[in-house]
């Protein structure tokens, strides 16, 4: 079966401050059965890309093909299930009824009870949707996507509002579903989620794809750590050449080293400069990593 093809997709929104270039020409090919993470900070264009993939938004330019069909045809055939980033549940039905209502719209849905169990909703199946907690609501939204038993499951920032336990259960279910040969695309701004649960990571920033590859490769690109230390009177060039360090900058008496391998870097730093004090090692954060990858000092929307 042919997979999913996004070709030259572009989308610009009008806003009072002028046009917002949400997606600036992206190409992605997804094979049937792959699990793909769309990784990027807020404002990277992930949700806009998903809207075009689902046929909820029209691309200004470019094409979308879902298993050889236009998105709206794939949706009409029941081949797509999605958990959107925003949206509340309708009221006055209990969880089981709402999931059954959605199931009734699809040609070959999963069993409702099985879906409830898989989504960890067994205990609240009889509860009205307006009486659920945030995390429970999120799980119902997942159940709604899951019960459609789609060939393509799309999840936009699915674990927002879930607690740690809820997240783990959620990803286990997602993996079990993917193991049935289904194609899964999920958007996230957590590198750990992309790394742990995707076969492949597509990295987006400012409406463009900045990297596309296996999680280990992407992790090497954006999984940088920083070492911060008080270390006056040492030239930055010397620090930047230490093993594991990719760049160095000075902030007053302190230096900040961005590292590809922070373990090697800290050993080398302490060997060469035993007088370094107040040492902190931390994650560089996706935003900072994206800035380096894109080489853009003033990114639109990447500051959130």
């Amino acid at each position, binding site marked *: 079966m042919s997979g999913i093809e996004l070709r030259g997709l572009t989308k610009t929104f009008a806003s009072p401050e002028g046009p917002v270039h949400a997606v600036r020409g992206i190409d992605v090919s997804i094979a049937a059965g792959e699990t793909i993470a769309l990784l990027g900070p807020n404002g990277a264009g992930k949700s806009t890309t998903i809207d075009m993939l689902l*046929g909820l938004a029209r691309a200004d330019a470019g094409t979308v093909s879902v298993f050889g069909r236009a998105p709206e045809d794939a*949706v*009409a055939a*029941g081949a797509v299930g999605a958990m959107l980033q925003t949206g509340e549940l*309708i009221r*006055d039905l209990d969880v089981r*009824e709402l999931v059954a*209502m959605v199931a009734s719209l699809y040609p070959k849905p999963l069993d409702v009870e099985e879906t409830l169990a898989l989504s960890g909703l067994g205990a609240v199946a009889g509860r009205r949707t307006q009486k659920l907690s945030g995390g429970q609501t999120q799980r119902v939204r997942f159940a709604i996507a899951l019960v459609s038993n789609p060939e393509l499951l799309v999840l936009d920032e699915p674990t927002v509002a879930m607690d740690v336990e809820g997240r783990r259960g959620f990803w286990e279910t997602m993996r079990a579903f993917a193991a049935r040969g289904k194609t899964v695309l999920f958007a996230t701004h957590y590198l750990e989620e992309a790394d742990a649960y995707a076969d492949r990571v597509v990295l987006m920033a400012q409406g463009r794809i900045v990297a596309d590859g296996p999680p280990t490769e992407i992790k090497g690109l954006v999984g940088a750590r920083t070492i911060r230390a008080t270390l006056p009177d040492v030239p930055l060039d010397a620090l930047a050449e230490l093993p594991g360090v990719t760049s160095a900058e000075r902030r007053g008496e302190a230096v900040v080293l961005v590292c590809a391998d922070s373990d090697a870097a800290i050993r080398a730093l302490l060997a060469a400069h035993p007088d370094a004090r107040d040492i902190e090692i931390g994650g560089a954060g996706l935003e900072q990593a994206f800035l380096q990858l894109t080489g853009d000092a003033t990114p639109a929307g990447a500051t959130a």
Partner: protein
Amino acid sequence: MNAAYLRFELLRTVRNRRFLFLSLGFPLVFYLLVAGSSRNVKDLGDSGLSAPLYYMVGLVSFGAMSAMLSSGARISAERQAGWHRQVRITPLPPRAYLRAKVLTGYLMALLTMAVLFVAGAAMGVSLPAGRWLEMTGLLLVGLVPFAALGILLGHLLSVEAIGPAMGGGVALLAFLGGTWFPIPDHGALHVVGQLLPSYWLVQAGHVALGGAGWGSRGWLVMAVWSVVLARLAMRAFRRDTARV
């Protein structure tokens, strides 16, 4: 039609207890007040109809108009919740979505009718079975423009705006249509009233006098309103759900 989907839509509507009691209760209370105080009037305002019968149909039209427009309020609420986007990524065709909303409105309208018909019978309204059926049929046809209006408003207005718009609109249409007193057969009220679908809803009570309930003018007014409002509703629906 997807029967399971429709069943859940109806279930949701009747589960909303406050909505159910208010939308069935108000017309009933009004009816008991106005018809109760004029029970023995045999010819209300030269309409040729007894007060209990006239007001029964008058308040059916009031209650049924509200019931049809309430589907607009449900559409508006689903849009605000973002549920319409979730529906759009299911295989449910837009037609079936709208049909479920219209049928739900009709179910509520039928409940209002049932409640008021029982109250009317208790007040002494007595008609042959054929006349009851004919009247019910005219009322159901006469609600078509209001079904379209509900969809139109639901896709046009926010949840905050649709309440006052419906309340005010129904009150005005009911007043000019003759819910509260028979429209005189000449003068400005008569001219305006005859152009409104709510007037012809109230006129459905005239089947009790025998002969045609509406006449060609009534059918024409209803047909024009139905076509115009249905077109506007489809346009509002398409614009609201267009991919941007």
